[in-house]
């Protein structure tokens, strides 16, 4: 296999996501092919690559929005590909997703946004649902904004509210699409800390699509590096190791250029 593969971390942990011979794309257009990877419980797994390399397409296949062209995706041991509608709903209930724009329901307050899944899928009494929703919002630093509509929030606050909503049902896996986009550095660092603590303390697995290299180095256990031209993953491993040891020129230049630019004095 030409791809550079590095394995890190504790391999004894349970595998919660497994991609086998995965090929993704639109119609007959193949965007990425030959993807093989596993993500373990409590791991922060970052999908990295240049613009247009297929990061979001891969993510949408992993969360069941698109059907892969070939191969399999297992979430918590159950294959998403070829699952019936009922099985698919059951599998997807174990995951939470946040989208780039936040995708909050505009006609509801953010508290109502977080409450929605709890109301629909649990038998908890209303005051319990209310407290859980408020605690989730408190976790992402939105205490005091519970009664606001999404339109009344800044872009960064909307992103945090979306994370709170995704966590409402305590999913085992959280997929975050560009979570740091639109956040100031302090909030972004706080979010990194939150992701780390949720992963370490609660064992939540994170799959994150991001461009923020500072966050990647702060939180990622492993990264999957995609190349749109070669239409496949060209490297996988710990970001610090990849930065130091990767022999792939694209991976090297990607890390060096962006790291160099962030290390320049203001």
């Amino acid at each position: 296999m030409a791809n550079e593969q590095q394995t890190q971390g504790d391999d004894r942990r349970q595998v919660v996501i497994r991609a086998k011979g995965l090929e993704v794309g639109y119609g007959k257009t193949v965007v990425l092919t030959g993807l093989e990877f596993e993500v373990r419980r409590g791991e922060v797994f970052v999908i990295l690559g240049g613009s247009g390399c297929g990061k979001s397409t891969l993510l949408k296949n992993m969360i069941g929005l698109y059907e892969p062209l070939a191969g399999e995706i297992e979430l918590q041991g159950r294959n998403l590909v070829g699952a019936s509608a009922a099985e698919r709903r059951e599998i997807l209930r174990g995951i939470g997703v946040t989208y780039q724009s936040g995708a909050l329901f505009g006609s509801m307050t953010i508290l109502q946004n977080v409450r929605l899944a709890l109301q629909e899928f649990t038998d908890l009494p209303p005051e319990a649902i209310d407290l859980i929703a408020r605690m989730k919002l408190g976790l992402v630093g939105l205490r005091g904004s519970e009664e606001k509509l999404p339109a009344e929030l800044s872009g960064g606050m909307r992103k945090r509210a979306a994370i709170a909503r995704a966590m409402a049902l305590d999913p085992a896996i959280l997929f975050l699409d560009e979570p740091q986009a639109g956040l100031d550095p302090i909030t972004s660092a706080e979010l990194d800390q939150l992701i780390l603590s949720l992963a370490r303390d609660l064992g939540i697995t994170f799959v994150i699509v991001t461009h923020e290299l500072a966050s990647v180095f702060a939180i990622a256990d492993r990264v999957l590096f995609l190349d749109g031209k070669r239409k496949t993953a060209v490297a996988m491993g710990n970001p610090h190791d990849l930065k130091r040891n990767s022999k792939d020129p694209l991976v090297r230049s990607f890390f060096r250029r962006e790291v160099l630019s962030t290390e320049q004095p203001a």
Partner: protein
Amino acid sequence: MGATTGSGRARAEVREEDGVLVLALAGHLDAAGTAEVWRPAESALAGLGSRALRLDASGVDYADGSGTALLFDCLQRAKRKGGGAELVGASHEVRSQLELHDPELWCEQPAPERKSDGLIVEVGRATTDAWKEARELIEFTGAVAIALKFALLNPRSVRWRDVVRVSERAGVNALPIIAIIGSLMGLILAFQSAIPMKKFGADLFVADLVAISLLRELGPLMTAIVLCGRSGSAFAAELGTMKVNEEVDALTTMGLEPVRFLVVPRVLAAVMTTPMLAVFANLCGLIGGAVVFLSFGHPLVSYYRQVQGAVTHVDLLGGIFKAFTFGVIVAAVGCARGLQTGHGASAVGLSTTRSVVSGILLIVIADMAFALLYYALDI
């Protein structure tokens, strides 16, 4: 001796030890388990009084966000009652989850403040809103008038490709519905009038009634109402979505006036297509009336002569001028409501509804004004 509640997933046991109320939670505190023991725990705490609470979580083998919320709620309720609270036997995972939440932040749950402003303030607010809306509409009318004048003086500035595209969608594509409603309107008018008129031997004049009603009034009015529901709402939704997506802001910052760029092509398309649709509706209505007329045993030539004698080109042109005005109203109101859209998907829905309601209202008011004008001018 304590009381145990709950079933398979989770259990809650309440007992007293040395003046301390012990609430022992056990089992799987996920959403389902927590739902089983939430009420029993709440009842136990209601009888806490001034005693201290010992929350025993040694039997909890798993707690997710809902289980954590239950533990948190118990501890905070007990602390608020002043007797103190302690958590014992909790696993590292459970403690870690609890520590993610700042207890100081959650000691008090302020009830959301909701106070009524009173009738006078509400009336004042409604009046201000109505005045603001009227002013916006007047400003918008002025902006459209200026943009239309500019377009007439500089025809090359108009985005004719957009005008053709909108004309096709709002005009050509509306032909089937206009044909159906127009012909049925003629048919219904003829039927409803034929029965009483036949009693007086005046059934020949059904043709006159249908022709005058359609050409002067119903053809343009019905066309405008259909157009308002079909195209005015589409304009509002399209421009509203652009507003929500900040596309209108992008136009403004690019130096392009939204009114000239978005509203003028739609208004021009509407004023060109509405009169034609009204004429088409008249024609379909007359055909519908003719069907009834023939079914009463009269020849077609009688219908033709009656119609020819009943209406003149003044009636036709009067109706077309009405349709022209209604077209301006439909397009302008639809676009105005679209550009007034607030934030979010619900705002687009609201704008669409408002465009239809205010469009139909303004059409009827304009129709009344035309009735008075034509009466005064003896048309």
